């Protein structure tokens, strides 16, 4: 037998890279840790840490006269959320978020269903692009575009006039809590813009959920005597609820945090997002902004708890 190092070299590569890869192979936990540490540092440290810091500032004191923040802990900011003026903002935002989520789900479902069940190859690609293309354009441009579309004498108004529905529009705009003087300054207009902007976030998760639905389940349902609508109610819909829940979490939380659309479209009046923006920017009341930041977090947490209680994640 030849034991000289030269003869063994091809078998035992002892380079540092080789040793590292064998080490990682032998210790899979080390490998996993190396992979996970960077994202965990980012998520845990930078993201989560700064969020906690922000929320902690919600307990600081803001001096109205000197306009300064002192790190004296107080619950006054949180209590202030329940003052009628602030409470109104929260309710208005919450109602809009719920309405937008509901409408998005209703609009998105047929599109997602068609994409998942009736398209293939190029048609499917076309639908993917059609759904996502609006997201390629700047969000602010789209919001501004809608202010023009909905403005008095704008495209929307023109279409309504052409179809002779002017009276109907006036009637709708007259409903308190929905209307306003024109479409672009009404709650309805704001709602339309929100639905338009967040719709792709609803379509894609529902489409993914429907795509995962095995065709054999639908066949089994028909085989057992279920008519198409029964199959839809008993099988398709329950199994797509995780997708609807995921989509509605997007639309719900995105609406809760938005501060641009409420500024550009709809009647005057703050949303949670615009309140945070104004408090920390124009006024410099960081503690109050932080207190308002807590609201969407709590609302989304409640929303998730309710959705979970309804069994949305049972089929996952």
């Amino acid at each position, binding site marked *: 037998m030849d034991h000289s190092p030269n003869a063994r070299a091809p078998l035992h590569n002892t380079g540092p890279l080789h040793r590292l890869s064998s080490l990682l192979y032998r210790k899979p936990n080390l490998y996993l840790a190396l992979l996970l540490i960077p994202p965990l540092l980012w998520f845990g440290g930078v993201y989560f840490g700064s969020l906690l810091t922000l929320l902690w500032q919600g307990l600081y004191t803001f001096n109205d006269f000197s306009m300064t923040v002192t790190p004296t802990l107080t619950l006054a900011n949180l209590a202030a959320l329940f003052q009628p003026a602030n409470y109104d903002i929260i309710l208005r935002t919450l109602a809009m978020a719920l309405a937008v989520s509901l409408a998005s789900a209703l609009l998105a479902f047929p599109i997602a269903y068609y994409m998942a069940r009736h398209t293939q190859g190029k048609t499917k690609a076309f639908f993917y692009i059609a759904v996502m293309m609006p997201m390629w354009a700047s969000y602010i441009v789209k919001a501004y575009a809608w202010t023009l579309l909905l403005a008095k004498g704008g495209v929307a108004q023109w279409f309504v006039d052409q179809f002779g529905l002017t009276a109907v529009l006036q009637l709708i705009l007259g409903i308190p809590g929905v209307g306003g003087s024109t479409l672009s300054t009404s709650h309805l207009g704001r709602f339309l813009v929100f639905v338009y902007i967040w719709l792709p976030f609803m379509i894609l998760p529902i489409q993914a959920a429907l795509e995962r639905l*095995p065709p*054999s*389940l639908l*066949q*089994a*349902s*028909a*085989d*057992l*005597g*279920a*008519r198409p609508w*029964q199959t839809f109610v*008993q*099988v398709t819909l*329950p*199994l797509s609820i995780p997708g609807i829940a995921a989509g509605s979490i997007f639309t719900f939380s995105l609406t809760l945090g938005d501060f641009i659309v409420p500024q550009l479209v709809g009647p005057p009046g703050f949303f949670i997002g615009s309140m945070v923006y104004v408090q920390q920017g124009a006024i410099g009341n960081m503690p109050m902004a932080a207190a308002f930041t807590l609201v969407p977090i709590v609302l989304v947490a409640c929303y998730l708890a309710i959705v979970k209680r309804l069994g949305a994640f*049972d*089929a996952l």
Partner: protein
Amino acid sequence: MTLAVQFSGVSRLFGSITAVDRVSIDIEDGEFFSMLGPSGSGKTTCLRLIAGFEQPSTGSIRIHGAETIGLAPYQRDVNTVFQDYALFPHMNVLDNVAYGLKVKGIGKRERHSRAEEALEMVALGGYGERKPAQLSGGQRQRVALARALVNRPRVLLLDEPLGALDLKLREQMQGELKKLQRQLGITFIFVTHDQTEALSMSDRVAVFNKGAIEQVDTPRNLYMKPATAFVAEFVGTSNVLRGELAKRLTGSEQPFSIRPEHIRFADDQAAASGEVEISGLLHDIQYQGAATRYEIQLENGQSLSISQANDQWQEATPAHRPGQRVTARWARHAMIALREDLPHKGR
């Protein structure tokens, strides 16, 4: 005997591919009927045509005398046990089984008691509260069976239901399915690619090849009197001899089949009248437990299999060794003349 299912000249085309090619079968009421064939032979498509998941391109399918063209699956009095079981993951076992009754508008109390009964029939009483994900493969298979049977269909379709089970469980389920079919007296149409399974369970078997039926017969006839070379080779193992070799042995070029277990090694005595002999080189011996298989290379290069039962309690020393020149012998009447191809093929 009334007919449960009747195919008359049924074809199903997918684009330019003919999945089912002019199939005509009569399946009798109360029969355990198997559709056997390799994958892609059209057997599953035939099952789906009966269930209504596919519509035939031409021909007619009658279920208990009634034409089914244009009928949706929910309008047919048949139920299917799917290959992947297709249990509803969001419902517990009891609701899965009661599903067919629920969509027919049967009240909760009655459908739950009937579902519980069906579960007991497949030995899963008390499993109603579990979710399908909490069951083993064999248990899911039983739930799928109970879910189909609770509707009391006149015809039950089974699409390779045992394919995903391990061997022991599969053999046990074969026995239980057969027993269940006898008890209930309904027609079972069973699709499988496993010829042992088809032979051991069925009253009759249809052998599929390339979308067409090669032979429909009882398991015994299928094995003892295969009609075509395909059936002879697909059902069990067979030596199919053709051409010159066939002519030398039988006087005719028509191919014939001889089963390995019907061949024995020639002893020193001369061949008796009515016996055929052929010699070759023994090139492989496979010990298989109950039998030993010998592969003999014939002069024309073809291989001939001989199977000899190891039926002596004391194992004898093997009399033959690879490399030896041996002579095989069999009775002339053990040879089965075959059709090489179906008459309507080779268009």
